[in-house]
């Protein structure tokens, strides 16, 4: 340019991208510079020309294609969501089943342990000693191998017990068996042949006494058969026990260690006030409550109280009571889990359709027309039962060539698109009826929503009942405005069926003169 002014500033000025000093500079320049003023005019003119040349309206077919594409993707997403829900429901079902099974098993085990407690009074002592023969049996192959050893061991096993072998050693063995259910490291120091023999004898008696082989009885029978088969092991065990027979003070120390939680190392020689039998019984009972190993551990972790000498029976009873309370609590928790899980898989009360329907009402701001209300009232009179059952009339008032992309609520009649629109396509998704109606009055009408010139082919009222979320047999009332609100058709329109409805040429259906008005009253289930 001849004046040498920065032209890009002029372009920015036209584009309203200048402010402050730059804008002042441009304004001050174009006041006196005619060529720049002309340049500004030319830029504005070019902008207008480009707009007029290139600004076009997206064809309906393109919008329909978009909608189809989006629906396709949405359907795939929906399928994934559906699959997810199925998996979630299956997982919930599995959890509920597992919890129920565990509860059932727990209750069954409790019952069996109760039965065992009632039916096998001698079993308590037997269990104390039963583990040792088993350990010996495991070790047997290593220690034997010669026939003489087997015979000797068998003889010694069958020999009558001496007075020395009874008593303290037996008690010690029993208590230690409870305190340490799996003494792998220690080679059974508290075991004695008399104890094993006693256990074997009692178990044999018990096996005879017991009728059907309940789980505890089965275990006992297996152990009852063990002594004969495990004779060599028992013999070697006997030798070990004879070499390490624990004496009474040690037993007391072990008892105290067991109940105080010292767990070894610290040996106290203080006498326990409770009788030994009571100790054994209480410990054994306690051990059989539910799971012997765990509960023994629980008792062993009771804090030691040096100097306090509570009766062992009382202490055990307290611990047992506490554990029973805990078991009850755990069972209560397990029981509580069931209803929660059941709630998770329980069907939801409000259906998706109801939610969508409510959302549709809220969003669409459904226009209640007098005619629709009248029809609704009439319908309510004729079908009072349905009304009572929750069926509701809904009406949508539509004007113009209503396509699936037309807004339901058109705020302006000038053809401007409303800022807040809800297309009929969306309404259809939400459960409304989609209606398309041409302009029956003017041969060259124009669609107010698309500003597209209508052809004669479109001078036909078409009623599209697309995939509305209505039942297949939902009644659809189509109202047509002529000289008043006249019910044009009432009946059942199958879903997804296009119903061409010709407008009577001599009876314009509109009062606004340019666009048809149709009200569709649908009755759906809320």
């Amino acid at each position: 340019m001849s004046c040498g002014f920065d032209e890009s500033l002029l372009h920015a000025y036209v584009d309203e991208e200048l402010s402050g000093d730059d804008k002042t500079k441009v304004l001050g320049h174009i006041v006196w510079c005619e060529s720049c003023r002309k340049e500004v005019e030319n830029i504005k003119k070019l902008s207008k020309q480009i707009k007029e040349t290139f600004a076009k309206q997206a064809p309906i077919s393109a919008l329909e294609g978009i909608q189809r594409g989006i629906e396709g993707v949405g359907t795939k997403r929906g399928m994934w969501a559906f699959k997810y829900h199925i998996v979630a429901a299956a997982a919930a079902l599995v959890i509920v089943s597992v919890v129920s099974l565990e509860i059932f098993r727990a209750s069954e085990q409790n019952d069996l342990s109760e039965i065992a407690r009632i039916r096998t009074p001698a079993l308590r002592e037997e269990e104390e000693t039963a583990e040792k023969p088993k350990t010996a049996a495991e070790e047997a192959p290593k220690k034997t191998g010669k026939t003489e050893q087997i015979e000797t061991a068998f003889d010694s096993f069958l020999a009558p017990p001496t007075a020395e072998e009874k008593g303290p050693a037996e008690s010690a063995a029993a208590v230690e068996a409870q305190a340490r259910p799996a003494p792998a490291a220690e080679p059974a120091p508290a075991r004695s042949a008399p104890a094993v023999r006693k256990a074997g004898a009692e178990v044999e008696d018990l096996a005879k006494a017991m009728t059907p082989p309940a789980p505890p009885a089965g275990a006992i029978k297996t152990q009852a058969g063990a002594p004969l088969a495990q004779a060599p092991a028992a013999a070697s065990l006997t030798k070990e026990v004879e070499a390490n027979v624990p004496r009474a003070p040690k037993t007391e120390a072990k008892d105290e260690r067991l109940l105080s939680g010292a767990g070894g190392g610290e040996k106290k020689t203080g006498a326990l006030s409770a009788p030994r039998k009571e100790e054994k019984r209480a410990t054994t009972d306690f051990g059989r409550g539910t799971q012997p190993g765990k509960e023994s551990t629980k008792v062993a972790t009771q804090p030691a109280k040096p100097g306090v000498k509570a009766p062992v029976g009382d202490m055990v009873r307290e611990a047992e009571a506490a554990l029973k309370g805990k078991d009850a609590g755990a069972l209560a928790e397990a029981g509580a889990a069931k209803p929660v899980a059941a709630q998770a898989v329980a069907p939801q009360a409000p259906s998706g359709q109801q939610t969508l329907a409510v959302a549709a009402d809220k969003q669409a701001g459904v226009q209640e027309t007098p005619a629709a209300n009248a029809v609704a009232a009439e319908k309510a009179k004729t079908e009072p039962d349905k009304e009572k059952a929750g069926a509701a009339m809904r009406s949508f008032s539509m004007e113009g060539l209503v396509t699936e992309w037309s807004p339901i609520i058109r705020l302006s009649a000038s053809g401007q698109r409303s800022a807040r629109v809800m297309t009929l396509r969306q309404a259809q998704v939400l459960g409304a009826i989609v209606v398309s109606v041409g302009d029956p009055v003017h041969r060259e009408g124009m669609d107010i929503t698309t500003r597209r010139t209508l052809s004669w082919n479109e001078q036909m009222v078409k009623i599209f009942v697309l995939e509305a979320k209505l039942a297949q047999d939902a009644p659809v009332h189509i109202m047509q405005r002529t000289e008043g609100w006249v019910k044009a058709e009432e009946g059942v329109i199958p879903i997804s069926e296009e119903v061409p409805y010709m407008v009577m040429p001599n009876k314009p259906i509109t009062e606004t003169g340019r666009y048809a008005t149709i009200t569709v009253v649908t009755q759906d289930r809320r």
Partner: protein
Amino acid sequence: MLKGDSGLLAAVKRGRPGAFEELAVPLADRLYSLLAGMVGKTDAEDLLQETFLKAFKSVRDFRGGCSFATWITKIAINTARSQVRKKHPVSIAEEIAGDEDSSGDRFDSVASDAVTPAEAAEKKEQKKQVALALAKLADEEREILLLREIDGLSYEEIGGVLDISPDAVRSRLHRARQHVFGLLGGGRV
């Protein structure tokens, strides 16, 4: 981003049916015009659908760093670029110019009431010249002109779409207009 847009965008991300259409369909005309200016009317329809579908598929990943309109415009531009390379510019220009004869656009129906037949013919010829001139521009110049004049985007928004600075937008726009003036003969419309 407009207030309504952010609400709708949140609804789209939540998966509310129809929310995407509410958000995107009002932009359809603008995008169609842009695409038609770039590749011609024939392919613009397909590209518009492709653009919307791409946007719908990836809208959940849209972080909101720019407006939704800018974001979807960027998608449209990128979608159109591949198509532009396949087509001869003159054929695009002829297609655009040919559209004027069909008088299918909304402005014709409004403007035709106010002008005489002679004026209308003159106007049509001017449009044809403009269409041909734009068709002869380099792709980047045509893009920036269409984004500014049809979409009405600000320099900053155009910069967001084309990944350039606002200053670069200003200079490129200036250059594009000068080029058009030159192509229109005598330098001016």
